[in-house]
């Protein structure tokens, strides 16, 4: 009898374990039905409420604005149409993309969001995910959306063979930030920030005071910076128009001489002694602490920088320095786009598309721009009186917009799925040349060879 009891209890234990496992696994479908998995397709009645999940990578000041925009939508248009959107912060772009990749790899479409914000550097990955609904298809069905209103540079960023994958949402360019008070103290004209890398090197040297750990400029260039520094010289970084005309299979910066030009100028600048390169530094903190005179970062950092500097000193913004004074290409568009994911429910796709349209509308983009520093992706935003008022009051925000409008849409980050790897190779090889570990030709050919190998490996697995 005792033994029987034991067996029964052991069985009970297994059953209870199975029971424990059950609710969590059935959790998702249950949640789904409650949010309206009606099979009625696109014509589902608006009475059925739709709940959308929106993964984003905006933290700090910018996250507040994301929440504010979503809340406004939920209270107005969303309320009318029965759509509720929930923004979920998923860490940096890198962390967010890792989660998207992991969910896609596990084919866990239930846990994927309906909307994803993904950066310019990862368009190639996004376009290869089967559950992404290309924006081009959604635009084709919706005549109310005018893609011509959007900034052409940003549209180009997220397009492959002239078909747009995601709708630009939070877009930026790289920008030079500088401390005007430090310029004045060093006897430099604060209204004339450096226009070229050569000038940057000279000014940085005068702004540097090593005993008090004060630097003129800190940067270890990676793909983000190089996309603009290579692109502005005229050619493309990779073949097939950097992957936008067709799959990128090799880099081109080694053949066009653009990388060599850059390396020559950059080394001259570093050798003047005012540029710190190679060490990881938190440039925004150093800048706000008055220990760093200049740095380059996304325009989206502007609001945060202004907040952390306060009235300690006057901040200046300027165009990204050129490699050669004659460069005309300008800078690449960074930032991110919103993508719709197909999770088997047309009502959700329609709702997500509605939110995307709201996000890129002139009024929303105005709020977004004022709150963050990302430039407005909708050109109609400039027709709003409030926008002109804002730019008059805040001339620092205007620099980014002027820079964008004088840049060629052809200057872009490459559309390859191995951008992370290419970025690492560029960073390491640039550094090994600058620190005299390699001569210039070896450094260029090594980084090209490594990048080409990574592209080849990826293209072999993903045809």
């Amino acid at each position: 009898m005792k033994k029987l009891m034991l067996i029964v209890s052991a069985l009970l234990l297994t059953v209870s374990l199975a029971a424990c496992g059950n609710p969590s696994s059935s959790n998702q479908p249950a949640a789904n039905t409650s949010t309206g998995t009606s099979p009625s397709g696109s014509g589902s009645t608006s009475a059925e409420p739709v709940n959308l999940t929106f993964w984003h990578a905006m933290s700090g000041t910018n996250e507040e604005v994301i929440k504010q925009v979503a809340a406004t939508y939920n209270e107005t248009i969303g309320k009318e149409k029965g759509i509720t959107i929930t923004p979920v912060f998923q860490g940096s772009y890198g962390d967010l993309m890792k989660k998207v990749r992991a969910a896609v790899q596990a084919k866990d479409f239930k846990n994927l969001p309906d909307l994803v914000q993904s950066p310019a550097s990862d368009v190639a990955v996004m376009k290869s995910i089967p559950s992404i609904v290309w924006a081009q298809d959604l635009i084709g069905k919706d005549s109310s959306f005018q893609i011509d209103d959007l900034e052409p540079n940003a549209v180009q960023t997220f397009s492959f063979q002239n078909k747009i994958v995601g709708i630009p949402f939070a877009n930026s360019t790289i920008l030079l930030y500088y401390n005007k008070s430090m310029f004045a103290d060093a006897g430099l004209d604060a209204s004339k920030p450096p226009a070229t890398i050569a000038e940057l090197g000279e000014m940085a040297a005068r702004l540097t005071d090593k005993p008090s750990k004060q630097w003129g400029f800190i940067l270890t260039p990676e793909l983000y910076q190089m996309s603009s520094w290579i692109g502005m010289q005229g050619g493309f970084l990779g073949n097939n128009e950097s992957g936008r005309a067709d799959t990128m299979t090799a880099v081109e910066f080694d053949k066009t001489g653009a990388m060599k030009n850059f390396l020559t100028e950059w080394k001259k600048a570093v050798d003047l002694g005012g540029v710190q390169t190679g060490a990881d530094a938190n440039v925004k903190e150093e800048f706000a602490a008055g220990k760093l005179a200049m740095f380059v970062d996304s325009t989206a950092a502007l609001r945060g920088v202004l907040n952390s500097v306060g009235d300690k000193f006057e901040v200046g913004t300027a165009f990204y320095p050129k490699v050669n004074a004659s460069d005309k290409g300008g800078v690449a568009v960074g930032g991110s786009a919103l993508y719709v994911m197909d999770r088997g429910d047309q009502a959700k796709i329609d709702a997500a598309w509605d939110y995307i349209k709201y996000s890129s509308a002139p009024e929303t983009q105005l709020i977004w721009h004022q709150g963050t520093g990302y430039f407005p992706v909708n050109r109609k935003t400039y027709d709003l009186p409030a926008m002109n008022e804002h730019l008059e009051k805040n001339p620092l925000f205007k620099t980014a917009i002027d820079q964008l409008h004088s840049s060629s849409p052809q200057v872009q980050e490459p559309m390859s799925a191995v951008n992370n790897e290419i970025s690492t190779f560029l960073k390491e090889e640039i550094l090994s040349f600058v620190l005299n570990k390699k001569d210039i030709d070896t450094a260029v050919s090594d980084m090209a060879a490594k990048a080409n190998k990574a592209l080849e490996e990826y293209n072999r697995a993903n045809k």
Partner: protein
Amino acid sequence: MERPLNVKRLVKPYLFLLPSVALIFLFNYYPLFKTFFLGFMLVDVVGNPVEFIGLDNFIAVMQDERFWTAMLNTFKFALITIPATLLISLLLSLLAEKKRRGSSIYQIMFALPMAVSMSSAALIFQLLMNPTLGMFNYLTGLQVNWFGDEKYALTGIAIVAVWMGIGFSFLFLLAALRNVPGDLLESAELDGGGYIQKLWHIKLPLISPTLFFLFTTDLIGSLMVFGPVAVITKGGPMGSTETLIYRMFIVAFENSKYGYGSAIAAVIFVIVMIFTFITFAFEKKGVHYH
């Protein structure tokens, strides 16, 4: 009546084992086999194995400079953290060994790092060891860019890991030391044995099973270190803190090369297994069970 009972008797232990065996298979062995399987495949960005490529991935791992750098970094890390963790926690537990008034306070203090989550600890140390704003350099008078300089970053990570490991080891060693029979120590005292002699000839041999256990878990833990690297340095600067697991993570989840990443994982598994076997061989010589 005799027979069915015997069957029950036979089945019973397996029934008890069933839940844990099922879970272990689901969460340990299935992923292990799948990893080995994917290691021989070309896997696309969506995670589908597209082509069997034999040993290509493994050959690529062996030829990958960064993999060897990661291996070297991991060994360096293990070489710093294991002795440091054991030594410091042994010293602390020797200090706390005798029960005195209020000794529970510093016992708790020594063991408390265990209660801090890895990421929070890593973030706190990142601030403490900030080159310009941090307390660490201020108090020690050093001018070291702990996590930003290639030369020191791995040591910096090791310091964080040691701090986080101390609490756990301390707790085990304290319990072991307090279990050393008092009569043995007393008779040693009667024979005129001093503190060092008692420590060397009685306490250490008697706590050697615990030391061995800690050594083995520390070894496995440090060969598979990931957390502080991911939070603080992300493998940088210039790959100087890239460890084996971090390399695998980046290859698989950032570069979307799951096949190649799986091959790295398989190699790491073999390395850790070899080291575990070596320590178990050593156990027979160095560990004294009473």
